[in-house]
């Protein structure tokens, strides 16, 4: 592998929160192994630990990020499949220049729409995708968009309020 020429090495290029990354595929600790999930790459390789892994089995929704605008389970997505994609994670929602929060983030704060907070980044990402596609959701729309998200503390009721409030303020 190390004798391979630079240009022969397989590379995966994608953007995360607007920042371009080009990562080598390989089995060294600094490389992307073919078995690495996007969740693993985001957290362990890029240090973006805001994306949480609750089950690593594609069942709890906590690792949800946006890929080209759609919510995906980053624990069920292989990084080698992400070439050319645009990824948005929870770290990408706050305006870096102004520090202004996304309306969803503000609404989650205002409604204390979390308890332990571990499921929150995934829920916010799924809700963001919902509001982009449907800026005027009703309660049922919100529940359906978040149906795959597990929260054991039961923040659900406050989350629904927060998403509806964010939608209302965003109009």
């Amino acid at each position, binding site marked *: 592998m190390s004798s391979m020429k630079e240009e022969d090495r397989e590379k995966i290029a994608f953007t995360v929160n607007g920042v371009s990354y080009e990562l080598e595929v390989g089995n060294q*600790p600094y490389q992307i*192994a073919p*078995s690495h999930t996007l969740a693993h790459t985001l*957290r362990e390789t890029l240090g*973006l*630990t*805001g*994306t*949480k*892994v*609750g*089950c*690593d*089995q594609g*069942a*709890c929704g*906590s690792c949800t990020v946006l890929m080209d605008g759609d919510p995906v389970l980053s624990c069920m997505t292989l990084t080698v499949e992400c070439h050319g994609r645009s990824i948005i*994670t*929870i*770290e990408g*929602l*706050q305006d870096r220049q102004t520090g202004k*929060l996304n309306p969803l*983030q503000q609404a*989650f*704060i*205002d*409604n*204390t729409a*979390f*308890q*332990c*907070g*571990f*499921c*929150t*980044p995934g829920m*916010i990402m799924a809700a963001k995708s919902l509001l982009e596609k449907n800026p005027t959701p009703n309660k049922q729309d*919100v*529940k*359906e968009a*978040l*149906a*795959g*998200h*597990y*929260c*054991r*503390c*039961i*923040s*659900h*009721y*406050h989350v*629904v309020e927060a998403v509806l409030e964010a939608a209302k303020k965003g109009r």
Partner: protein
Amino acid sequence: MSKEYRFIGKRTPRKDALEIVTGKATYIGDIKKPELLYGKILRSPYPHAEITRIKTDKSEALHGVAAVLTYKNVPDWRTGIPRHVPVLDRKVRFVGDAVAIVAAETAEIASEALDLIEVEYEQLPPVYDVEEAIEPDAPQLHADFPRNLMPLDIPTFGPKTLSEVVMGDVEKGFDEADVIAEGTYGYENIANPLPIEPPGVIARWEDENRLTVWSGTQCASWHRFIMQSKMGFPDIRAIDTQCGGSFGSKNYAPLPLFYAAALAKVTGRPVKVCFTKEEHFGAFVLRLGSRFRGKIGIKKDGTVTAVSGVWFVDTGAFSDMAQAQVAVGCGEAQLMLRCPNWDLRTRLVCTNRSASGVVRGFGGQELESALSPILTMAMEKASLDPVEFFKKNYVKPGEGYFWREGNYWVSRGRDYSEAIDSGARAFGWNEKWKGWLKPTAVNGAKRTGVGVGIHGNADVGEDESEAYVRLNPDATATIYVNISESGMGQRSSLCKMAAEVLQLPLARIHITPADTMVNPFEFGLVGSRGTYAVGSAVIEAAEDARQKLLELAAPKLEAAPEDLETRDGSIYRKERPEAGISWSGAMGIMRTCMGFGRFEPDYSVPNFLIQFVEVEVDTETGRVDLRQVLSATDVGQIIDPLSLEGQLHGALGSAGIDTALFEESILDRTTGHMLNINMIDYKWRTFLELPRFENVILETPLPTHRFKAIGVGEIATSPGPGAVLMAVSNALGVKVSEYPLTPDKILRALGKTGRGKTV
């Protein structure tokens, strides 16, 4: 009530809200340390076996492996009560029991190394049933505990620790009863509290005797003051990260800590052990199994005359908190049932499945959920309205009970009758309750029914708390208290209490990270003790610091300290608020004012929750739909409305109400394997199945707390399971008593399936 307060009772953002919504909140999985190694565990495929041969050389030879440990070379540390569970043993006692542990440069290498360990087992017969396990010829799990009976005469809470409820004369009590109900019922789902985040620990030895432990746990001090005694008393510094949910289960994490610390010891490097979800399901902690074989006598007016029977408590392979749960369960049963004659004995039994640990409800939920079918049978026989029965029998001020440490306490709390009545009115109980085994409504194949349950706990004032509050010259205050944030919002609520004492904006109140090196002793956030126990220590510390500040200011303002007031960082004579001096003016810039507060245990103030539920049962499919939950309580004074509401919503999570409907760990008794240890097959309630949920929260001031408050969060899960059995029975017109009420059980109860029937 909260009108008189500036912060208490007001909706304020959680102090950690910004971190949580931006992904900056740091959990144990997010942390790395220089030179970090990753630990993995090889687990047993058999429920009961001796390891006859174990070879690790191939595993050790794998590039990137730093250490492989087996029972032969691990440190001699032990957990369990009494301390008998080693880090690794020659014997395995459940499918998933640890066989060997590996530390490697990456988690992947560690996993690969596990596959290279060669193990030969001699299988032993397993036992899974709590009553079979205590037969003389049953397979024995632990050599020291014949018939698999774990000792109950352990001084968990001192020499008189409660392990049974025996008082009065039960024979006389049953003679006086108008009706007697008896039977054997179980609450043996061994459901998983299943916080979203699996447990994790990082351990690093600073020198031979000094260990630093980072973890995402609920009680930051336990990894020091409890684990020290299990590990030969090293000097442990325990640091907590944000905790991704616990519900008691991650109060602490003795085995993950053992593994990380053992691997760290032999490698001389920090080691991180984070359980996978499968391990979290199959090798961490479950609810206790609970079975009650006994009888209850009551009079037609609802007076309970006698309770007798045996409470079988199944710990699984071991437990390091079960005796404490038995003690609290015995106490809570007395709060629920005023009765002069008791003969409630207990058997604490181990069986060949993964361990039980602490779960919200802490013994009481387990005992009461098993008692509930017998209690409802008695109420039904006596034609009593359960709401009236509970109101009559829940402990009242002036009445007493033996609590966990064996002392008799007289309640100086409140009479919750008003909360019960308010809840019943809001739910429409009188309109919906049609009598025993009578549906509220029938709509074709769908039948609606209602049920009710209660729970109370006198642990709101349990154990010790200490806090410092430091006032800084820049008019900020720092609270030193060793609590972590696992979801209850208590770190913020404590800031609100201090802000109220100091009349300082919330943004000017800071709270130290949970770190035993920084903070004084704090037992932790368990048993709804955050408000009364921890809160009182923080309040006392804030008052003490404030007093010292006013004493410094007094000569400068030419007044006595008691004539002074402080608000928003200004100190002034009460009659002249406009002529104030700043905190730095009073104390100078090279000084701080430190106050100290300490809380001593007080078991005289029980909390309480009543829960009403409405279900709709589809008699064709057997599906039960939980349509409405209404909880009612009196908390004296709300500290933080949204946090409290969230804690009460928690009834639907953490192996609570849904243990009556679909939550269970399914143990295959032919192989010992759990069949549903993943988040697809272990059922959980989604957003689409949320019932209508209301909380009726009264605020009748309680004199025991400066802000007249009492905590209630822990018990939200406990009244529900029994209430759901009652509601489904009423909907069907047939008594159902087997948790969880999955469709097969409903159809069987309706005679639609079972012997000789097909669906």
